[in-house]
């Protein structure tokens, strides 16, 4: 060997390397935007940078409740780098724990309202009691809970979970998120990611004139064969219309009780033998899609005032498959105008109404899904409270019931007029803030989309005793708050009376219908200025994202006051039936509303849905034919007298892989009680699909 040292690369080699580097740079620069599309928006996503305590910067220990737990930055088998987060819960009686991104301006990732983001983490967990949880920074409210996205299945190996957020609400500038563990076990996470997944909205064109913004009504060329006082959308897409005696004492005297099933696909009705006078009953779909009907009309009031309406104790189940009623055991008390709310376990609670002797029913009546029977009066928890007639009882995410103050006939309940009822504890706690609680007779309440947001809107109302003009009040309540209080909402838009006479500034509506739509808005239609008199022609669209009404929606040319109903059809349209003014007539016409979204372009198609019932906290795969903005489950309506407390829209956070989408169902049955739901997806043009029916259990 001589002493000459050769360089590692010759001059020629160095020139070749330089050429390769230049070509590489050209390649990179020739793919514009790609690096931005995948940009991880998180600070310290791999948990590699730690502070003096050894905890990752821009992360914090979060949670609440009573548990024995530890947080550890582990170096043992991280997914990437040197660190991973390990949260161990060895015992827990309440609450949860999570490693959460720090809620401060420099650590929390910035977001843009209207955008969507794919959130991803690698994880291992020994417990399935985990969920990805998000908070958002509202420029007005500060940091607030946003929603839960997806449950993580147990895994001993590193696994990735990716979920797309809903559209970021207006007024939001930052979000934070993390994985919550709320059961005993160990959760490890690492290598978080958050990328902007906003999809470009295609240009929309509409040539339908006013229908582009107002939608359009069509009065069907046929009439309903029965007085559709009770309307229930069935698991097969048909509509059960129950009249019973239909507020017709002659039919009652003759024992002529009627039911028909309407098929929207064929426009045909099938009459169904009706075993009792189910007029003024309560109804709700059970977990298997059959319809539980409770109570009804035992007697009309006597002309001499010796007695009023009397309630039946009878209860039946209508089966959409057999198209027939089957009797179940009697209720514990007569029930004329009872409420009916399905619970997270599939059971049903019924409150209020009139008994067999016209007195107020004070028993809490409880139908058990497992036993398929009404409990005896001593088996059910009792508070002995009279809840009025058709009290609107909305199931809350923790299983309690929120009495919205919406009811039928007379004054509101004593006190604040709204409350939270805990069946298991037999307690009723007042909720304040409802405006003019004694003028919310024949108002309507809805749990606003999405159900995860736990907000209720109550609209309009009047009072049959004092008979003022119905009001245009609306009230909003956020049941996520520690002490929820109703807040005044925007006034109901004004409409016109018969003859096109504009309403005054103070006039509103009672017996209003509010229908949840698959785009997440609430269509409000129908109603009248007084009990069974003076129809109001007005319709609007309430947007829960902005708490505003879009006035000027097309109005149903048919008056829709007392004994009318409107409800969502699986094809995304709204059907309206009934009207029973004081002169005793009944309008048998059927109207169908096509919302503006159906004039905006092509409808997305759900090409396939993974089979079988859908378990809570799991993901169901669907395939679609194009880009999708969001997905939801909407519980089919079971409505009468402006009351359907079970109506709800459940958001389904998406895991998107092209046209294959994993839909993540909440683990909480109180947010989506068991039963059949309409599954909708909404395309990036804002147009919803036709619903596919899925069973949640």
């Amino acid at each position, binding site marked *: 060997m001589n002493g000459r040292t050769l360089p590692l*690369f010759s001059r*020629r080699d160095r020139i070749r*390397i330089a050429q*390769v580097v230049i070509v590489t740079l050209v390649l990179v620069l020739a793919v514009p935007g790609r690096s931005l*599309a*995948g*940009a991880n928006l998180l600070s*310290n996503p791999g948990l590699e*940078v730690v502070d*003096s305590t050894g905890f990752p*910067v821009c992360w914090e220990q979060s949670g609440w409740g009573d548990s024995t737990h530890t947080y550890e930055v582990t170096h043992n088998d991280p997914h990437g780098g040197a660190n991973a987060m390990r949260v161990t819960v060895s015992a827990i009686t309440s609450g*949860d724990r999570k490693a959460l991104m720090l809620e401060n301006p420099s650590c929390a990732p910035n977001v843009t309202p209207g955008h969507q983001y*794919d959130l991803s983490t690698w994880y291992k967990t020994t*417990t*399935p009691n985990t969920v990805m949880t998000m908070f958002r920074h509202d420029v007005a409210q500060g940091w607030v809970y946003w929603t839960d996205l*997806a*449950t993580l*299945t147990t895994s001993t190996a590193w*696994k990735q*979970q*990716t979920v797309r957020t809903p559209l970021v609400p207006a007024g939001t500038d930052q979000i934070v998120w993390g994985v919550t563990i*709320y059961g005993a076990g160990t959760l490890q996470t690492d290598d978080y990611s958050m*990328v*902007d*997944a906003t999809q*470009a909205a295609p240009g929309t064109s509409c040539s339908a004139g006013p229908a582009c913004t107002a939608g359009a009504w069509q009065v069907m060329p046929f009439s309903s064969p029965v007085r559709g006082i009770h309307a229930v959308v069935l698991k097969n897409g048909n509509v059960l219309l129950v009249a019973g005696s239909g507020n017709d*004492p002659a039919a009652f005297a003759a024992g002529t009780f009627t039911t028909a099933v309407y098929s929207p696909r064929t426009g045909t009705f099938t009459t169904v033998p009706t075993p009792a006078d189910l007029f003024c009953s309560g109804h709700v779909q059970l977990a298997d899609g059959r319809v539980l009907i409770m109570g009804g009309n035992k007697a009309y*009031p006597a*002309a*001499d005032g010796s007695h009023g309406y009397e309630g039946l104790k009878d209860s039946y189940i209508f089966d959409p498959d057999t198209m027939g009623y089957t009797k179940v055991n009697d209720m514990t008390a007569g029930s004329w105008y009872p409420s009916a709310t399905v619970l997270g376990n599939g059971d049903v609670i019924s409150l209020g109404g*009139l008994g067999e002797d*016209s*007195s*107020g029913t004070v028993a809490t009546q409880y139908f058990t899904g497992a036993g398929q029977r009404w409990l005896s009066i001593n088996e059910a928890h009792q508070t002995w409270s009279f809840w009025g*007639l058709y009290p609107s009882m909305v199931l809350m995410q*923790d299983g309690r019931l929120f009495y919205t103050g919406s009811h039928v*006939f*007379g004054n509101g309940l004593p006190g604040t007029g709204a409350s*939270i009822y805990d069946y298991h504890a*037999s*307690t*009723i706690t007042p909720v304040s803030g409802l405006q003019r609680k004694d003028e919310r007779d024949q108002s309507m309440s809805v749990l606003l989309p999405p159900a995860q947001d736990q907000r209720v809107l109550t609209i309009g109302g009047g009072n*049959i*005793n004092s*008979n*003022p003009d119905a009001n245009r009040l609306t009230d909003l309540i956020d049941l996520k708050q*520690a*002490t*929820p209080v109703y807040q005044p909402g925007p006034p109901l838009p004004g409409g016109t009376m018969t003859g096109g006479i504009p309403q005054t500034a103070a006039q509103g509506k009672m017996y209003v219908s509010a229908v949840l739509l698959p785009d997440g808005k609430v269509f409000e239609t129908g109603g009248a200025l007084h009990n069974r*008199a003076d129809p109001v022609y007005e319709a609007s669209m309430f947007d829960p994202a902005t708490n505003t009404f879009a006035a000027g929606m097309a109005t149903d040319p048919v008056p829709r006051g007392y004994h009318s109903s409107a409800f969502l059809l699986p094809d995304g349209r709204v059907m309206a039936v009934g009207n029973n*003014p*004081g*002169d005793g007539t009944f309008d048998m016409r059927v109207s169908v509303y096509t919302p503006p979204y159906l004039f905006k372009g092509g409808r997305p198609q759900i090409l396939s849905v993974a089979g079988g019932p859908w378990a809570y*906290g*799991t993901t*169901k795969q669907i395939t679609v034919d194009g880009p999708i903005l969001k997905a939801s489950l909407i519980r089919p309506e079971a409505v009468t007298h402006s009351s359907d407390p079970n109506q709800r829209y459940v958001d389904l956070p998406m895991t998107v892989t*092209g046209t294959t989408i*994993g839909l993540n169902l*909440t*683990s909480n049955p109180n947010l989506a009680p068991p039963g059949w739901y309409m599954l909708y997806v909404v395309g990036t043009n804002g147009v919803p699909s036709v619903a596919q029916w899925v069973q949640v259990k």
Partner: protein
Amino acid sequence: MRGARRTLLGLGLLGVLAAGVWLVAAPGSHASPAVAPAPRPTDSTWPLLAAGPAGPAGPAPVPVPPPVTPTAAATAVPSSPAAPNPGGAAAPIVQPFVQDFAGQPGVKPLKPLPSPTGTHFVRPNVDGCDHNYGEITQCVPWTFPPGTTDKCAWLAERGFQPLKVAAADRQKLDPDGNKIACDD
């Protein structure tokens, strides 16, 4: 070029080519122009920019992981109960996740009511209709809207025909006493 150098250069080339292919073929090209760039922290208190309390040597350089874009292989496995676990055991059932909302601290529950010994009275005209008039299915208001001066005119405007007086003429709609209201 010596063999070792040639090998080294070849490996480098392969790496660069692989990076190029990944850049071109990796999914994510469908991302829309609406995608926002990653926000850059401008806050001087941002712990990753400031000399943090991470120890004598200061914070380590922030590792920038490669962009994570969902791919067929990397996307989360469906969390259906039917999906097999790495351990092969059936997935345990997830418990409901319930939030700690609406605890109403400080709000007293209503006083519990005793088991009733009587009935809860509801007046017969609960529907707001005066059933002294017309058929039961009809609804002459028990209380007419404020400002109503002529009740029969109010009824006629809303389609009512003359009504039988079924019981007492409570609202004085039958001044001639012929048991037909609003027939004058």
